[in-house]
């Protein structure tokens, strides 16, 4: 990282790094949240303890949503200076990231150790944190660079206004779901955005509402409950840094290779949805020839359905599935391996066809998984079967709905999907 930002390229490089930091953070929090138990029947927890676990999961998901907000604001900054958004990131475990430990930033189950690392990361947003490599230092460098380039009468704010995402474009009323994404068109907006990112990150005092304070309270509560009951275990026995052998990626050093065949398929289904969501977000940030209806169609698939109907439930399903073929524990988790090159598809029609094909393939894979999970006798399979069935229905629904949103032939969409399903041995 250069000492000073002296050019647009320097700025974009720093913003891309910031995007990767926020993206990695939200993945870590989603993973930890997915690892939490839901019922005493899972063992080592009582109903009153589960009530605390629910509150902790709610806190983690809130923080994750706000990291999504931060990622959105950084992408708005990139758009504002005329560049494409950045959704790439290293695989897990990652090397040193700002604010993290020296090496090995991980996807890990909920635990006191994980929370300590989360709090340390969030504290690195604080203004007092002047350590090189802190999140605060990175954003201060970005802001200093923006101010310098703006003051130099540099033609900085060249991005088209429509290439910005906000609560309004996502159709999320102001204040809902604890997120506030707003357009960035000039230096004043950029200052507000950077301040917001740093402000929500810091505030480590127990009563504070920032991430460090919130996660610190979770850590205190966890320690208190574990002191009262040493047998209490709030999270499932999820492996750290689960990986699959996905296209273009090799298992990273320190990753736990998933080997149970159904679990690998479920993880790849998650990754397929994750990669498609990122591709759609890239397109959403870079509107080209699409009509307002088509752009709304992207929004109606990429935001709520893919995130809420697929990724969160499938992430939780994975933490109940065995990681290996040999034994039922430890269990797996979402691997967040996109498996596709994250580049903007420049041609609208081709992009629609690609996304539609991806949705259909996800529907077919979902149907296969539903059938094969349904054949298993194990308790974990019976437990996840209803959610897997619902997933399959929603994948099919998304494929048909997307065809409608972008004015493709929906009847043909269903016929093609049924052919794919029939070719796979599934009758519909």
């Amino acid at each position, binding site marked *: 990282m250069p000492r000073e930002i002296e050019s647009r390229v320097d700025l974009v490089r720093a913003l891309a790094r910031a995007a990767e930091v926020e993206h990695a953070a939200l993945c870590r929090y989603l993973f930890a949240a997915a690892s939490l138990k839901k019922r005493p029947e899972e063992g080592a927890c009582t*109903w*009153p303890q589960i*009530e605390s676990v629910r509150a902790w999961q709610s806190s983690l998901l809130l923080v994750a949503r706000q990291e999504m907000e931060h990622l959105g604001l950084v992408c708005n900054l990139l758009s504002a200076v005329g560049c494409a958004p950045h959704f790439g990131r290293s695989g897990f475990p990652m090397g040193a990231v700002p604010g993290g430990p020296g090496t090995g930033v991980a996807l890990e189950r909920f635990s006191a150790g994980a929370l300590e690392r989360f709090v340390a990361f969030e504290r690195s947003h604080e203004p007092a944190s002047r350590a090189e490599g802190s999140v605060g230092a990175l954003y201060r460098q970005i802001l200093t660079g923006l101010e310098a380039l703006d003051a130099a009468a540099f033609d900085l704010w060249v991005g088209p206004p429509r290439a910005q995402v906000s609560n309004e474009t996502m159709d999320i009323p102001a204040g809902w779901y604890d997120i506030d994404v707003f357009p960035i068109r000039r230096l004043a907006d950029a200052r507000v955005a950077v301040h917001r990112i740093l402000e929500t990150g810091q505030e480590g005092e127990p009563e504070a509402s920032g991430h460090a304070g919130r996660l610190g309270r979770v850590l205190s509560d966890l320690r208190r409950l574990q002191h009262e009951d040493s047998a209490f275990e709030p999270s499932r026995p999820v492996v750290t840094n689960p990986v699959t052998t996905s296209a273009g990626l090799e298992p990273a050093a320190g990753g736990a290779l998933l080997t149970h065949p159904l679990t690998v398929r479920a993880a790849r289904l998650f990754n397929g949805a994750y990669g498609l969501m990122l591709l759609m977000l890239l397109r959403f940030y870079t509107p080209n020839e699409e009509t307002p209806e088509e752009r709304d169609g992207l929004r*109606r698939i990429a935001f*709520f*359905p893919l995130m809420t*109907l697929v990724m969160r*439930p499938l992430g939780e399903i994975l933490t109940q599935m065995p990681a290996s073929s040999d034994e039922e524990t430890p269990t797996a988790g979402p691997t967040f391996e996109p498996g596709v090159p994250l580049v903007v598809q420049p041609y609208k029609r081709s992009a629609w066809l690609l996304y539609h094909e991806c949705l259909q393939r996800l529907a077919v894979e979902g149907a296969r998984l539903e059938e094969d999970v349904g054949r298993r006798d194990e308790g974990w399979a019976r437990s996840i079967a209803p959610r897997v069935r619902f997933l399959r229905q929603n994948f099919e629904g998304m494929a048909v709905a997307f065809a409608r949103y972008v004015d493709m032939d929906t009847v043909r969409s269903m016929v093609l999907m049924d052919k794919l399903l029939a070719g796979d041995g599934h009758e519909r």
Partner: protein
Amino acid sequence: MNADHLVLEFAGWFQCRLATNPDPTDEPRGVSGHTFALPGEPDLDRVIRFQEPVAPRSHGPRVAVEVGAVSRGGESLSDHPLLRASVDLLDGPKFESRNLLLTDDRAGVGLIHPFHLEVKVPGLVVRRRDLVDPDAPDQELHRVAPELLNRRAPVDLNGMIMDPERIAEVTGITDGLEFRARRREALETDLAGARDPVVRAALEKRIRDLRITHPRDLRLISLQATQTRRFALNGPVEIHDAAGRLEPVDADRDWPIGFWMGGWDSDSLCGYVKGRLAIALSGG
């Protein structure tokens, strides 16, 4: 409505144990939304219950929808056998929106499916289904054309309608903040005497939630909001009337139904429903 229809006016509280945004539709316990399965309760199942609630909560309304008035040709029938009949939705109906995949209802509530209405008194049962797609009655919802789904969606797709007067008229709730405060006080009294740790955990969760008073919070907004649905039941009719007390019905004509649902009490997971069903009669 003319004399060839028997009009049943029905009303009452219903229960629906469902997760709410931003939780997934199939979230079993509730995490980030404003509805939850409490300690000791079964998982959220999304089923709309007009009768026989599951795990009813203390100090909540009595769940029971019934016929409050019967008329024909504008004339009230005060001794009709269906007066005070229970009204129920059979086959485990749910609100089906799936994050706007199925309908364009911006409130995200969607259509009620399946819709299999039953009106019943001892010895007399009237049932009728509504078919979303009569040409493919068993089709999975996500494969049904949107115009057919939207037929059963709320009439105003732009979202819930704030209608505090209507809610107050039927429920007595004139001030959402005060309503919730009184509920909280009752629960705090219960908590003071509760010893069972599971009961205490459930009460504490409810009390914490009832302390939320932000005017834009959905717990408060939905308490005074409504959604209206209007369509006509078009499916097979089933009548059990051994004593022949009911007028001959016309099963070939559709039966119009219109009702609103609202006054959503997120603490008890109950809402209010009020509407009317017009049963087509044969022979005019």
